[in-house]
């Protein structure tokens, strides 16, 4: 029997089907695709992006945007490394020699603080989130440049940088078929489990859906909407800083453009995963699917030796196709609403 509900369920979970299709496509395109090394690479590449997308998903569900996370990621990574490395022409650190654990706490709290400040500007300052986070994106990136004057801050051969290296590079254990699983992948998995629990089974998540769905109603029913929005930006900033820690561990030498233009991929991942830009819709599981799809395509194109000059074109097209599918989904949903209400 044809049922709209079943169709909608399929469309809502279409991302996993597409992921399988793309996966199979690449397997036939490159003999190296299904190697443990490549799978491990896909997962590692998905880790940093995944943490950013998780933060963005919260913000999007509450009906807001956060464009600034790529800069927060960069600044958190920069500050974290700068605090532990010596000052000098080859490293350009602060010469503070801070305890690395302390420097990580500093960089994470800085991320949360940046997010909170953005939330305050939006709620107390009554400004549009797009403008505030766009300004933050520029200001934070500018701070990175001004701070380093363009020189990289390098943590190479520095035992204090091991904590960064641990999260970004260390392999935790080997899974047959999937290759070596890095600590970063485990951490991202953990982030997704916690975020999923918060969204599905915690009052906080429920309230975010309500705010994104009908802000007016949420307010009238006594939800402190502005406070929730500040918290959601804080969470986004914190997760961006965590992603910064991960990326710092992978690259160790921090350039002042670290993370630049990442934000497009972050939005693409969330939207492809079914998180609505209008707020109130989307799941962590879907967002994870979007992230995996993007990093799979990225690695696959690499292995197919597609010219770097064409990769951006393909990425853009993937986003367009995803949006096209999403638009059809919304239309189908509306159709099914009409169908069910006419039945009554």
């Amino acid at each position, binding site marked *: 029997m044809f049922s709209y509900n079943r169709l909608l369920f399929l469309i809502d979970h279409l991302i996993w089907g597409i992921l399988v299709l793309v996966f199979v496509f690449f397997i036939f395109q490159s003999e190296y695709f299904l190697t443990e090394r490549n799978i491990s690479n896909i997962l590692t590449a998905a880790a940093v992006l995944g943490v950013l997308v998780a933060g963005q998903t919260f913000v999007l569900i509450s009906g807001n945007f956060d464009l600034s996370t790529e800069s927060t990621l960069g600044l958190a990574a920069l500050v974290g490394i700068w605090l532990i490395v010596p000052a000098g022409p080859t490293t350009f650190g602060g010469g503070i020699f801070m305890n690395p654990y302390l420097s990580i706490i500093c960089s994470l709290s800085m991320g949360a603080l940046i997010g909170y400040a953005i939330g305050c500007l939006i709620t107390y300052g009554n400004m549009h989130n797009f403008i505030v986070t766009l300004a933050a994106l520029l200001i934070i990136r500018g701070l990175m440049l001004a701070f380093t004057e363009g020189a990289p801050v390098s943590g190479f051969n520095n035992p204090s940088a091991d904590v960064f290296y641990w999260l970004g590079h260390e392999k935790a254990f080997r899974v047959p078929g999937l290759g070596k699983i890095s600590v970063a992948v485990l951490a991202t998995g953990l982030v997704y489990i916690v975020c999923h629990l918060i969204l599905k089974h915690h009052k906080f998540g429920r309230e975010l859906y*309500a705010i994104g*769905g*009908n802000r*007016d*109603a949420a307010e*009238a029913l*006594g939800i402190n909407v502005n406070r929730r929005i500040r918290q959601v930006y804080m969470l986004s900033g914190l997760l961006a800083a965590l992603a910064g820690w991960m990326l710092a561990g992978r690259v160790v030498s921090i350039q002042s453009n670290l993370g630049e233009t990442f934000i497009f991929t972050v939005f693409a991942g969330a939207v492809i995963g079914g998180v609505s830009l209008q707020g*109130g819709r989307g799941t962590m599981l879907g967002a994870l699917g979007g992230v995996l799809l993007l990093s799979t395509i990225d690695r696959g194109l690499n292995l197919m030796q597609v010219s770097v000059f064409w990769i951006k074109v393909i990425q853009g097209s993937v986003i367009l196709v995803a949006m096209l599918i999403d638009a059809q989904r919304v239309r189908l949903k509306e159709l099914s609403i009409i169908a069910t*209400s006419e039945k009554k």
Partner: protein
Amino acid sequence: MKILELKNISKSFGAIHALENVDLDITPGEALGLMGDNGAGKSTLVKIVAGNFSPTNGEIFIAGKKTSISNPLEARNHGIEIVYQDLKLCNNLTASANVFLGREINSGFGFFSRLKHTAMNDRAAELFGELQSETRPNDLVERMSGGQRQAVALARTRLSDPKIVLLDEPTAAISIRQVAGILARIKQLKETGHAVILVSHRMMDVFECCDRVAVLRRGNKIADKPIANTSPEEVTGLITGALEKA
């Protein structure tokens, strides 16, 4: 004994005076019809009682005690429940999630608490049963008819046992058969000792189930009399301004 007393309530939004020195009271088991033309201040008055606005001036007494209601949660804690004109439903959430919005049942404490989905769904199903609605707790609100949406909003008021129930234009957007249901609900609330304030445009509804009618015009209360001592013609005159005072 008055359950709710408003004294000298004024509310201005900048230069606009939405309400000027309005007095209003209601006793348990009484239904008050609050009438007036568009922009007369009915919704503003109701929203002050429900904690959405704080009055610029004036005092609120609940069961004889002076009270300030600064937000909707406080109003609920005082036993005041409201069904808003636009129902205030989140289309993207299920019926049960909407019913419990803002006062979910949790297990655990603080950050480590967890929503009790089954308990909330069961309670919501019970409430829909009492309201004789076919709504199922897990249905999405966006896929519901007007009557079902109304039932979800009404079910919210039954989560606690309120003393005062405010209904802002509850019959404006539903079918005739469902209007009868709402009116029956109001009578039932009265019989069980609740105070009901019904904001409505529909003369018929007010005259069918209210004991008293108060009329607002341009932010002033110009009449407040028992239904038995008035007529639809008089109330219409008062609303439109054809009659200056009752």
